[in-house]
Protein backbone atom coordinates (compact mmCIF):
# COMPACT_ATOMS: atom_id res chain seq x y z
CA UNK A 1 0.00 0.00 0.00
CA UNK A 2 2.89 2.33 0.76
CA UNK A 3 4.51 1.44 -2.55
CA UNK A 4 1.26 2.07 -4.40
CA UNK A 5 1.13 5.58 -2.94
CA UNK A 6 4.82 6.19 -3.58
CA UNK A 7 4.85 5.09 -7.20
CA UNK A 8 1.53 6.69 -8.03
CA UNK A 9 2.69 9.99 -6.54
CA UNK A 10 5.83 9.71 -8.64
CA UNK A 11 3.80 9.43 -11.82
CA UNK A 12 1.39 12.22 -10.89
CA UNK A 13 4.23 14.53 -9.93
CA UNK A 14 5.54 14.15 -13.48
CA UNK A 15 2.50 16.18 -14.57
CA UNK A 16 3.81 19.23 -12.74
CA UNK A 17 4.14 22.02 -15.37
CA UNK A 18 2.74 19.62 -18.00
CA UNK A 19 -1.04 19.73 -17.44
CA UNK A 20 -3.54 20.91 -20.09
CA UNK A 21 -4.52 23.95 -18.05
CA UNK A 22 -2.88 25.68 -15.10
CA UNK A 23 -5.71 24.83 -12.71
CA UNK A 24 -5.35 21.12 -13.49
CA UNK A 25 -1.62 21.38 -12.84
CA UNK A 26 -2.38 22.48 -9.29
CA UNK A 27 -4.96 19.73 -8.85
CA UNK A 28 -2.68 16.89 -9.97
CA UNK A 29 0.11 18.25 -7.79
CA UNK A 30 -2.26 18.23 -4.82
CA UNK A 31 -3.01 14.57 -5.45
CA UNK A 32 0.69 13.76 -5.70
CA UNK A 33 1.21 15.53 -2.38
CA UNK A 34 -1.61 13.58 -0.74
CA UNK A 35 -0.05 10.35 -1.95
CA UNK A 36 3.48 11.23 -0.89
CA UNK A 37 2.11 11.88 2.59
CA UNK A 38 0.34 8.55 2.55
CA UNK A 39 3.53 6.81 1.39
CA UNK A 40 5.39 8.40 4.29
CA UNK A 41 2.85 7.19 6.82
CA UNK A 42 2.63 3.68 5.38
CA UNK A 43 6.35 3.16 4.89
CA UNK A 44 7.21 4.48 8.37
CA UNK A 45 4.75 2.03 9.83
CA UNK A 46 6.10 -0.80 7.66
CA UNK A 47 9.58 0.01 8.95
CA UNK A 48 8.35 -0.06 12.54
CA UNK A 49 6.59 -3.38 12.08
CA UNK A 50 9.69 -4.82 10.44
CA UNK A 51 11.71 -3.77 13.49
CA UNK A 52 15.07 -3.37 11.74
CA UNK A 53 15.19 0.39 12.23
CA UNK A 54 14.53 1.25 8.58
CA UNK A 55 12.86 4.64 8.01
CA UNK A 56 10.33 5.62 5.36
CA UNK A 57 13.17 7.12 3.31
CA UNK A 58 15.27 3.95 3.65
CA UNK A 59 12.40 1.95 2.28
CA UNK A 60 11.67 4.37 -0.56
CA UNK A 61 15.22 5.13 -1.62
CA UNK A 62 17.27 2.05 -0.79
CA UNK A 63 15.22 -0.94 -1.88
CA UNK A 64 15.77 -2.83 -5.12
CA UNK A 65 13.26 -3.46 -7.92
CA UNK A 66 12.26 -6.92 -6.69
CA UNK A 67 11.51 -5.61 -3.21
CA UNK A 68 8.77 -3.26 -4.40
CA UNK A 69 5.18 -4.49 -4.15
CA UNK A 70 3.17 -1.74 -5.84
CA UNK A 71 0.55 -2.82 -8.34
CA UNK A 72 1.75 -2.74 -11.93
CA UNK A 73 -0.91 -0.23 -12.95
CA UNK A 74 0.74 2.40 -10.73
CA UNK A 75 4.10 2.28 -12.51
CA UNK A 76 2.91 2.46 -16.13
CA UNK A 77 4.05 5.68 -17.84
CA UNK A 78 1.55 8.56 -17.78
CA UNK A 79 0.67 8.49 -21.46
CA UNK A 80 -1.68 11.33 -22.43
CA UNK A 81 -4.12 13.10 -20.12
CA UNK A 82 -6.86 10.56 -20.92
CA UNK A 83 -4.59 7.70 -19.88
CA UNK A 84 -3.68 9.36 -16.61
CA UNK A 85 -7.33 10.15 -15.86
CA UNK A 86 -8.48 6.61 -16.69
CA UNK A 87 -5.82 5.20 -14.39
CA UNK A 88 -6.68 7.64 -11.61
CA UNK A 89 -10.32 6.68 -11.99
CA UNK A 90 -9.57 2.94 -11.71
CA UNK A 91 -7.12 3.24 -8.84
CA UNK A 92 -9.02 5.83 -6.81
CA UNK A 93 -12.21 3.79 -7.10
CA UNK A 94 -10.29 0.79 -5.80
CA UNK A 95 -8.70 2.85 -3.05
CA UNK A 96 -12.04 4.31 -2.04
CA UNK A 97 -13.56 0.89 -1.30
CA UNK A 98 -10.30 -0.45 0.07
CA UNK A 99 -9.67 2.29 2.61
CA UNK A 100 -13.32 2.47 3.47
CA UNK A 101 -13.02 -1.09 4.78
CA UNK A 102 -9.57 -0.63 6.21
CA UNK A 103 -10.92 2.09 8.49
CA UNK A 104 -12.44 -0.75 10.51
CA UNK A 105 -9.17 -2.65 10.78
CA UNK A 106 -8.28 -4.10 14.18
CA UNK A 107 -4.84 -2.57 13.63
CA UNK A 108 -5.36 0.95 14.96
CA UNK A 109 -2.48 2.53 13.04
CA UNK A 110 -3.76 1.21 9.73
CA UNK A 111 -7.27 2.27 10.66
CA UNK A 112 -6.05 5.79 11.42
CA UNK A 113 -4.11 6.08 8.16
CA UNK A 114 -7.17 4.78 6.31
CA UNK A 115 -9.47 7.31 7.97
CA UNK A 116 -7.23 10.15 6.79
CA UNK A 117 -6.71 8.65 3.35
CA UNK A 118 -10.37 8.04 2.62
CA UNK A 119 -11.07 11.79 2.61
CA UNK A 120 -8.30 12.42 0.09
CA UNK A 121 -9.27 9.48 -2.08
CA UNK A 122 -12.93 10.51 -2.24
CA UNK A 123 -11.81 13.80 -3.71
CA UNK A 124 -9.39 12.16 -6.20
CA UNK A 125 -12.20 9.87 -7.27
CA UNK A 126 -14.73 12.68 -7.73
CA UNK A 127 -12.20 14.65 -9.78
CA UNK A 128 -11.36 11.62 -11.94
CA UNK A 129 -15.03 10.77 -12.52
CA UNK A 130 -15.83 14.32 -13.66
CA UNK A 131 -13.02 14.12 -16.18
CA UNK A 132 -14.00 10.64 -17.39
CA UNK A 133 -17.46 12.06 -18.12
CA UNK A 134 -16.10 15.16 -19.84
CA UNK A 135 -13.66 13.22 -21.99
CA UNK A 136 -16.01 10.32 -22.69
CA UNK A 137 -18.92 12.54 -23.65
CA UNK A 138 -16.89 15.51 -24.93
CA UNK A 139 -15.54 15.46 -28.48
CA UNK A 140 -15.00 12.50 -30.75
CA UNK A 141 -11.28 12.84 -30.25
CA UNK A 142 -11.50 12.84 -26.46
CA UNK A 143 -13.96 9.95 -26.52
CA UNK A 144 -11.58 7.84 -28.60
CA UNK A 145 -8.62 8.72 -26.44
CA UNK A 146 -10.23 7.81 -23.15
CA UNK A 147 -11.77 4.65 -24.62
CA UNK A 148 -8.34 3.58 -25.82
CA UNK A 149 -6.88 4.29 -22.39
CA UNK A 150 -9.62 2.29 -20.65
CA UNK A 151 -9.03 -0.64 -23.00
CA UNK A 152 -5.26 -0.61 -22.55
CA UNK A 153 -5.39 -0.30 -18.77
CA UNK A 154 -8.07 -2.91 -18.30
CA UNK A 155 -5.72 -5.87 -18.12
CA UNK A 156 -3.90 -4.24 -15.22
CA UNK A 157 -7.00 -3.86 -13.06
CA UNK A 158 -7.45 -7.52 -12.11
CA UNK A 159 -4.28 -7.48 -10.05
CA UNK A 160 -5.75 -4.92 -7.66
CA UNK A 161 -7.99 -7.58 -6.14
CA UNK A 162 -5.53 -10.44 -5.92
CA UNK A 163 -5.04 -11.99 -2.51
CA UNK A 164 -2.54 -14.41 -1.08
CA UNK A 165 -2.81 -16.82 1.79
CA UNK A 166 -1.39 -14.30 4.20
CA UNK A 167 -4.13 -11.82 3.21
CA UNK A 168 -6.77 -14.35 4.09
CA UNK A 169 -5.10 -14.87 7.43
CA UNK A 170 -5.04 -11.15 8.14
CA UNK A 171 -8.61 -10.84 7.00
CA UNK A 172 -9.71 -13.47 9.46
CA UNK A 173 -8.01 -11.48 12.20
CA UNK A 174 -9.90 -8.41 11.03
CA UNK A 175 -6.72 -6.60 9.99
CA UNK A 176 -6.95 -6.75 6.19
CA UNK A 177 -9.93 -6.20 3.91
CA UNK A 178 -12.27 -8.58 2.14
CA UNK A 179 -11.09 -8.39 -1.50
CA UNK A 180 -13.91 -10.20 -3.31
CA UNK A 181 -16.41 -7.75 -1.82
CA UNK A 182 -14.29 -4.80 -2.94
CA UNK A 183 -13.88 -6.30 -6.41
CA UNK A 184 -17.66 -6.52 -6.85
CA UNK A 185 -18.23 -2.97 -5.68
CA UNK A 186 -15.44 -1.74 -7.94
CA UNK A 187 -16.87 -3.43 -11.02
CA UNK A 188 -20.32 -2.08 -10.39
CA UNK A 189 -19.12 1.49 -9.81
CA UNK A 190 -16.75 1.48 -12.81
CA UNK A 191 -19.43 0.07 -15.11
CA UNK A 192 -21.86 2.75 -14.02
CA UNK A 193 -19.47 5.66 -14.64
CA UNK A 194 -18.19 4.29 -17.95
CA UNK A 195 -21.68 3.86 -19.29
CA UNK A 196 -22.68 7.36 -18.20
CA UNK A 197 -19.58 8.58 -20.03
CA UNK A 198 -20.85 6.74 -23.17
CA UNK A 199 -17.83 4.43 -22.98
CA UNK A 200 -17.72 0.69 -23.59
CA UNK A 201 -16.71 -1.58 -20.74
CA UNK A 202 -13.94 -3.88 -21.97
CA UNK A 203 -14.64 -7.60 -21.97
CA UNK A 204 -12.94 -9.50 -19.20
CA UNK A 205 -9.82 -10.92 -20.79
CA UNK A 206 -6.40 -11.89 -19.55
CA UNK A 207 -5.26 -10.01 -16.44
CA UNK A 208 -1.58 -9.15 -15.83
CA UNK A 209 -0.13 -10.08 -12.49
CA UNK A 210 3.19 -10.27 -10.68
CA UNK A 211 3.60 -7.47 -8.17
CA UNK A 212 2.76 -9.78 -5.26
CA UNK A 213 6.07 -11.48 -5.99
CA UNK A 214 7.95 -8.33 -6.91
CA UNK A 215 7.76 -9.07 -10.65
CA UNK A 216 7.24 -5.72 -12.39
CA UNK A 217 7.06 -4.11 -15.79
CA UNK A 218 10.30 -2.67 -17.15
CA UNK A 219 9.09 0.79 -16.20
CA UNK A 220 9.70 0.43 -12.47
CA UNK A 221 13.45 0.18 -12.93
CA UNK A 222 13.52 3.57 -14.63
CA UNK A 223 11.44 5.13 -11.89
CA UNK A 224 13.87 3.85 -9.26
CA UNK A 225 16.86 4.98 -11.31
CA UNK A 226 15.61 8.55 -11.17
CA UNK A 227 14.05 8.52 -7.74
CA UNK A 228 17.02 6.92 -5.99
CA UNK A 229 19.73 8.73 -7.96
CA UNK A 230 21.02 11.06 -5.24
CA UNK A 231 20.79 8.51 -2.46
CA UNK A 232 22.77 6.02 -4.52
CA UNK A 233 25.32 8.45 -5.98
CA UNK A 234 26.13 9.92 -2.55
CA UNK A 235 25.47 7.13 -0.02
CA UNK A 236 27.33 9.02 2.71
CA UNK A 237 25.29 12.18 2.36
CA UNK A 238 22.17 13.29 4.16
CA UNK A 239 20.00 15.91 2.53
Amino acid sequence: MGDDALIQSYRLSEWCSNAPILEEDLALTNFALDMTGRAQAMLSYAGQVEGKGRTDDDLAYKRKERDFYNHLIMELPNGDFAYTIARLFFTSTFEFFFFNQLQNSADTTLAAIAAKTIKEVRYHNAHAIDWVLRLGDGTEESHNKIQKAVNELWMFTGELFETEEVDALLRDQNIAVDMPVIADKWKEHVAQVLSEATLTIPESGYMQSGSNKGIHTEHLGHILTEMQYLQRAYPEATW
Partner: protein
Amino acid sequence: MELLEKTDKIHETMLKNFEEKIERGDAIEPKDKMPDGYRKHLMRQMSQHAHSEVIGMQPEGNWITRAPSLRAKQILLAKIQDEGGHGLYLYSAAETLGISRDEMIAQLHSGKAKYSNIFNYPALTWADIGAIGWLVDGAAIVNQVSLQRTSYGPYSRAMVRICKEESFHQRQGYEIMANMMKGTKDQQEMAQDAMNRWWWPSLMMFGPHDSESPHTGDAFKWKIKRHSNDELRQKFIDKTVQQAEVIGLTIPDKDLKWNEEKKCYNHGAINWDEFYRVIGGNGPCNKQRMDHHVKVHNEGAWVRAAADAYRLKKEKQLLHL
Protein backbone atom coordinates in the same frame (compact mmCIF):
# COMPACT_ATOMS: atom_id res chain seq x y z
CA MET B 1 -14.76 71.32 -33.37
CA GLU B 2 -17.01 71.76 -30.37
CA LEU B 3 -17.27 67.99 -29.94
CA LEU B 4 -13.53 67.61 -30.03
CA GLU B 5 -13.13 70.24 -27.34
CA LYS B 6 -15.68 68.42 -25.26
CA THR B 7 -13.91 65.06 -25.50
CA ASP B 8 -10.65 66.79 -24.67
CA LYS B 9 -12.32 68.26 -21.63
CA ILE B 10 -13.67 64.89 -20.49
CA HIS B 11 -10.29 63.35 -21.03
CA GLU B 12 -8.64 66.10 -19.01
CA THR B 13 -11.03 65.64 -16.06
CA MET B 14 -10.47 61.91 -16.18
CA LEU B 15 -6.73 62.36 -16.06
CA LYS B 16 -7.06 64.87 -13.22
CA ASN B 17 -9.29 62.53 -11.19
CA PHE B 18 -6.90 59.67 -11.77
CA GLU B 19 -3.86 61.65 -10.74
CA GLU B 20 -5.60 62.95 -7.64
CA LYS B 21 -6.45 59.41 -6.65
CA ILE B 22 -2.87 58.28 -7.11
CA GLU B 23 -1.71 61.34 -5.17
CA ARG B 24 -4.02 60.49 -2.23
CA GLY B 25 -2.73 56.92 -2.29
CA ASP B 26 -6.14 55.46 -3.19
CA ALA B 27 -6.06 52.13 -4.99
CA ILE B 28 -7.14 52.14 -8.64
CA GLU B 29 -9.84 49.55 -9.32
CA PRO B 30 -10.72 47.81 -12.62
CA LYS B 31 -13.71 50.01 -13.49
CA ASP B 32 -11.95 53.28 -12.65
CA LYS B 33 -10.96 55.44 -15.58
CA MET B 34 -7.24 55.24 -16.16
CA PRO B 35 -4.83 56.55 -18.79
CA ASP B 36 -3.97 54.15 -21.59
CA GLY B 37 -0.32 54.26 -20.67
CA TYR B 38 -1.09 53.14 -17.12
CA ARG B 39 -3.21 50.22 -18.36
CA LYS B 40 -0.60 49.18 -20.90
CA HIS B 41 2.25 49.40 -18.42
CA LEU B 42 0.36 47.25 -15.94
CA MET B 43 -0.64 44.68 -18.55
CA ARG B 44 2.96 44.34 -19.63
CA GLN B 45 4.33 44.11 -16.11
CA MET B 46 1.65 41.80 -14.69
CA SER B 47 1.62 39.39 -17.61
CA GLN B 48 5.42 39.24 -17.49
CA HIS B 49 5.19 38.57 -13.78
CA ALA B 50 2.60 35.81 -14.31
CA HIS B 51 4.57 34.18 -17.12
CA SER B 52 7.67 34.23 -14.91
CA GLU B 53 5.90 32.26 -12.21
CA VAL B 54 4.71 29.67 -14.70
CA ILE B 55 7.96 29.34 -16.66
CA GLY B 56 9.75 29.27 -13.30
CA MET B 57 8.06 25.94 -12.60
CA GLN B 58 10.26 24.29 -15.23
CA PRO B 59 13.80 24.47 -13.81
CA GLU B 60 12.59 23.25 -10.44
CA GLY B 61 10.19 20.75 -11.97
CA ASN B 62 13.27 19.22 -13.53
CA TRP B 63 14.22 17.89 -10.05
CA ILE B 64 10.88 16.67 -8.68
CA THR B 65 11.39 13.03 -9.63
CA ARG B 66 14.94 13.10 -8.27
CA ALA B 67 14.32 14.77 -4.90
CA PRO B 68 16.47 12.92 -2.35
CA SER B 69 13.87 12.27 0.37
CA LEU B 70 10.12 12.12 0.76
CA ARG B 71 10.21 15.32 2.79
CA ALA B 72 12.30 17.09 0.12
CA LYS B 73 9.92 15.91 -2.55
CA GLN B 74 6.87 17.22 -0.70
CA ILE B 75 8.47 20.60 -0.09
CA LEU B 76 9.56 20.97 -3.69
CA LEU B 77 6.19 19.90 -5.06
CA ALA B 78 4.35 22.28 -2.75
CA LYS B 79 6.68 25.08 -3.75
CA ILE B 80 6.32 24.56 -7.48
CA GLN B 81 2.58 24.28 -7.02
CA ASP B 82 2.67 27.66 -5.29
CA GLU B 83 4.47 29.13 -8.31
CA GLY B 84 1.67 27.84 -10.51
CA GLY B 85 -0.88 29.26 -8.10
CA HIS B 86 0.88 32.62 -8.10
CA GLY B 87 0.92 32.65 -11.88
CA LEU B 88 -2.78 32.01 -11.71
CA TYR B 89 -3.44 34.86 -9.23
CA LEU B 90 -1.45 37.23 -11.42
CA TYR B 91 -3.15 36.20 -14.65
CA SER B 92 -6.45 36.65 -12.88
CA ALA B 93 -5.45 40.14 -11.68
CA ALA B 94 -4.24 41.08 -15.16
CA GLU B 95 -7.51 39.88 -16.67
CA THR B 96 -9.34 42.63 -14.78
CA LEU B 97 -7.61 45.06 -17.16
CA GLY B 98 -9.43 43.57 -20.12
CA ILE B 99 -6.88 41.13 -21.50
CA SER B 100 -7.63 37.40 -21.46
CA ARG B 101 -5.25 34.69 -20.28
CA ASP B 102 -5.51 33.25 -23.77
CA GLU B 103 -4.20 36.52 -25.24
CA MET B 104 -1.42 36.69 -22.68
CA ILE B 105 -0.29 33.17 -23.52
CA ALA B 106 -0.40 34.01 -27.24
CA GLN B 107 1.81 37.05 -26.54
CA LEU B 108 4.24 34.87 -24.63
CA HIS B 109 4.45 32.41 -27.50
CA SER B 110 4.89 35.14 -30.11
CA GLY B 111 7.69 36.67 -28.07
CA LYS B 112 5.80 39.92 -27.47
CA ALA B 113 5.54 39.18 -23.75
CA LYS B 114 8.60 38.31 -21.72
CA TYR B 115 9.29 36.35 -18.56
CA SER B 116 12.03 36.72 -16.02
CA ASN B 117 15.41 36.15 -17.53
CA ILE B 118 16.60 34.08 -14.59
CA PHE B 119 14.68 31.01 -15.75
CA ASN B 120 16.79 30.79 -18.87
CA TYR B 121 19.54 29.30 -16.73
CA PRO B 122 19.64 25.53 -16.11
CA ALA B 123 19.11 23.77 -12.75
CA LEU B 124 22.04 21.35 -12.95
CA THR B 125 22.33 19.78 -9.51
CA TRP B 126 20.20 19.38 -6.39
CA ALA B 127 22.07 22.34 -4.89
CA ASP B 128 20.52 24.47 -7.62
CA ILE B 129 17.15 23.80 -6.01
CA GLY B 130 18.59 25.29 -2.84
CA ALA B 131 20.10 28.22 -4.69
CA ILE B 132 16.93 28.95 -6.62
CA GLY B 133 14.83 29.00 -3.46
CA TRP B 134 17.28 31.02 -1.46
CA LEU B 135 18.64 33.47 -4.06
CA VAL B 136 16.07 33.63 -6.85
CA ASP B 137 13.04 33.57 -4.59
CA GLY B 138 14.92 35.76 -2.14
CA ALA B 139 15.41 38.38 -4.85
CA ALA B 140 11.83 37.99 -6.06
CA ILE B 141 10.48 38.49 -2.55
CA VAL B 142 12.32 41.80 -2.13
CA ASN B 143 10.61 43.00 -5.28
CA GLN B 144 7.23 41.55 -4.36
CA VAL B 145 7.16 42.99 -0.86
CA SER B 146 7.66 46.38 -2.44
CA LEU B 147 4.86 45.69 -4.94
CA GLN B 148 2.32 45.02 -2.18
CA ARG B 149 1.89 48.80 -2.14
CA THR B 150 1.49 49.16 -5.90
CA SER B 151 -1.36 51.43 -6.96
CA TYR B 152 -3.52 48.96 -8.90
CA GLY B 153 -5.87 47.22 -6.44
CA PRO B 154 -6.06 43.71 -7.95
CA TYR B 155 -2.27 43.62 -8.44
CA SER B 156 -1.61 44.77 -4.91
CA ARG B 157 -4.06 42.23 -3.46
CA ALA B 158 -2.47 39.42 -5.47
CA MET B 159 0.95 40.50 -4.20
CA VAL B 160 -0.21 40.46 -0.58
CA ARG B 161 -1.44 36.92 -0.99
CA ILE B 162 1.70 35.86 -2.84
CA CYS B 163 4.06 37.36 -0.26
CA LYS B 164 2.23 35.55 2.51
CA GLU B 165 2.64 32.25 0.72
CA GLU B 166 6.19 32.81 -0.51
CA SER B 167 7.64 33.24 2.94
CA PHE B 168 8.49 29.54 3.13
CA HIS B 169 10.11 29.41 -0.30
CA GLN B 170 13.26 31.23 0.57
CA ARG B 171 13.61 29.38 3.85
CA GLN B 172 13.37 25.95 2.22
CA GLY B 173 16.10 26.92 -0.25
CA TYR B 174 18.33 28.22 2.50
CA GLU B 175 17.73 25.05 4.52
CA ILE B 176 18.89 22.91 1.58
CA MET B 177 22.06 24.99 1.25
CA ALA B 178 22.71 24.94 5.00
CA ASN B 179 22.30 21.15 5.16
CA MET B 180 24.64 20.65 2.25
CA MET B 181 27.26 22.91 3.80
CA LYS B 182 27.12 20.72 6.91
CA GLY B 183 27.44 17.58 4.77
CA THR B 184 30.17 15.82 2.82
CA LYS B 185 32.84 17.51 0.74
CA ASP B 186 30.91 16.64 -2.42
CA GLN B 187 27.85 18.36 -1.05
CA GLN B 188 29.78 21.47 -0.03
CA GLU B 189 31.32 21.77 -3.45
CA MET B 190 27.95 21.32 -5.06
CA ALA B 191 26.47 24.09 -2.91
CA GLN B 192 29.31 26.53 -3.62
CA ASP B 193 29.13 25.77 -7.33
CA ALA B 194 25.40 26.54 -7.36
CA MET B 195 26.06 29.76 -5.45
CA ASN B 196 28.69 30.76 -8.03
CA ARG B 197 26.32 30.19 -10.92
CA TRP B 198 23.16 31.78 -9.45
CA TRP B 199 24.54 34.83 -7.65
CA TRP B 200 25.05 37.14 -10.60
CA PRO B 201 21.88 36.20 -12.49
CA SER B 202 19.99 36.85 -9.24
CA LEU B 203 21.39 40.37 -9.07
CA MET B 204 20.36 40.89 -12.68
CA MET B 205 16.78 40.01 -11.77
CA PHE B 206 16.27 43.54 -10.47
CA GLY B 207 16.85 44.89 -13.97
CA PRO B 208 19.23 47.52 -15.35
CA HIS B 209 20.71 50.26 -13.17
CA ASP B 210 18.36 53.15 -12.46
CA SER B 211 20.36 55.35 -14.80
CA GLU B 212 19.51 53.05 -17.74
CA SER B 213 16.00 51.89 -16.98
CA PRO B 214 13.64 53.08 -19.73
CA HIS B 215 10.23 52.64 -18.06
CA THR B 216 11.03 53.93 -14.63
CA GLY B 217 9.61 57.47 -14.93
CA ASP B 218 5.91 56.77 -15.47
CA ALA B 219 5.92 53.71 -13.25
CA PHE B 220 7.02 55.87 -10.33
CA LYS B 221 4.66 58.71 -11.10
CA TRP B 222 1.75 56.26 -11.18
CA LYS B 223 3.00 54.44 -8.09
CA ILE B 224 3.13 51.11 -9.90
CA LYS B 225 6.74 50.85 -8.86
CA ARG B 226 7.54 51.96 -5.33
CA HIS B 227 11.30 51.39 -5.17
CA SER B 228 14.00 51.63 -7.83
CA ASN B 229 15.91 48.66 -9.28
CA ASP B 230 19.11 49.66 -7.53
CA GLU B 231 17.43 50.23 -4.17
CA LEU B 232 15.87 46.77 -4.27
CA ARG B 233 19.08 45.13 -5.46
CA GLN B 234 20.98 46.74 -2.61
CA LYS B 235 18.44 45.50 -0.10
CA PHE B 236 18.82 41.95 -1.41
CA ILE B 237 22.61 42.03 -1.29
CA ASP B 238 22.70 43.44 2.22
CA LYS B 239 20.53 40.73 3.69
CA THR B 240 22.01 37.85 1.69
CA VAL B 241 25.71 38.38 2.39
CA GLN B 242 25.26 37.69 6.09
CA GLN B 243 23.16 34.57 5.39
CA ALA B 244 25.92 33.21 3.13
CA GLU B 245 28.56 33.83 5.80
CA VAL B 246 26.57 32.00 8.46
CA ILE B 247 26.59 28.75 6.52
CA GLY B 248 30.09 29.16 5.10
CA LEU B 249 29.35 30.01 1.48
CA THR B 250 31.51 32.51 -0.41
CA ILE B 251 29.88 35.21 -2.52
CA PRO B 252 31.57 35.04 -5.93
CA ASP B 253 32.41 38.75 -6.05
CA LYS B 254 35.94 39.80 -5.15
CA ASP B 255 34.92 43.45 -5.10
CA LEU B 256 32.20 42.95 -2.52
CA LYS B 257 33.03 45.22 0.41
CA TRP B 258 31.22 46.72 3.37
CA ASN B 259 30.77 50.47 2.97
CA GLU B 260 30.91 51.85 6.49
CA GLU B 261 29.80 55.30 5.42
CA LYS B 262 26.66 54.21 3.57
CA LYS B 263 26.09 51.20 5.85
CA CYS B 264 25.69 48.84 2.91
CA TYR B 265 27.76 46.58 0.67
CA ASN B 266 29.49 47.80 -2.46
CA HIS B 267 29.36 45.17 -5.17
CA GLY B 268 31.42 44.48 -8.27
CA ALA B 269 30.34 45.30 -11.81
CA ILE B 270 27.45 43.29 -13.19
CA ASN B 271 28.01 41.74 -16.60
CA TRP B 272 25.26 43.52 -18.51
CA ASP B 273 26.43 42.07 -21.81
CA GLU B 274 25.41 38.67 -20.51
CA PHE B 275 22.09 40.09 -19.30
CA TYR B 276 21.21 41.51 -22.71
CA ARG B 277 22.51 38.44 -24.51
CA VAL B 278 20.25 36.14 -22.47
CA ILE B 279 17.24 38.48 -22.76
CA GLY B 280 17.91 38.61 -26.48
CA GLY B 281 17.26 34.86 -26.66
CA ASN B 282 20.76 33.46 -26.33
CA GLY B 283 20.61 32.06 -22.82
CA PRO B 284 21.27 28.38 -22.22
CA CYS B 285 17.58 27.47 -21.84
CA ASN B 286 15.48 30.11 -23.64
CA LYS B 287 14.47 27.80 -26.43
CA GLN B 288 13.90 24.81 -24.18
CA ARG B 289 11.60 26.76 -21.82
CA MET B 290 9.51 28.25 -24.58
CA ASP B 291 9.30 25.01 -26.59
CA HIS B 292 8.09 23.23 -23.48
CA HIS B 293 5.40 25.82 -22.78
CA VAL B 294 4.17 25.76 -26.38
CA LYS B 295 4.18 21.96 -26.46
CA VAL B 296 2.18 21.62 -23.23
CA HIS B 297 -0.26 24.28 -24.39
CA ASN B 298 -0.81 22.53 -27.73
CA GLU B 299 -1.01 19.05 -26.25
CA GLY B 300 -3.68 20.23 -23.83
CA ALA B 301 -5.86 21.75 -26.55
CA TRP B 302 -7.98 18.63 -27.12
CA VAL B 303 -8.66 18.34 -23.38
CA ARG B 304 -9.89 21.92 -23.11
CA ALA B 305 -11.97 21.47 -26.26
CA ALA B 306 -13.54 18.34 -24.78
CA ALA B 307 -14.41 20.13 -21.54
CA ASP B 308 -16.07 22.91 -23.52
CA ALA B 309 -17.94 20.49 -25.76
CA TYR B 310 -19.20 18.55 -22.75
CA ARG B 311 -20.51 21.72 -21.11
CA LEU B 312 -22.34 22.72 -24.31
CA LYS B 313 -23.91 19.27 -24.58
CA LYS B 314 -25.11 19.38 -20.99
CA GLU B 315 -26.52 22.89 -21.40
CA LYS B 316 -28.44 21.77 -24.48
CA GLN B 317 -29.78 18.70 -22.68
CA LEU B 318 -30.95 20.92 -19.86
CA LEU B 319 -32.85 23.16 -22.29
CA HIS B 320 -34.67 20.20 -23.87
CA LEU B 321 -35.83 18.76 -20.58
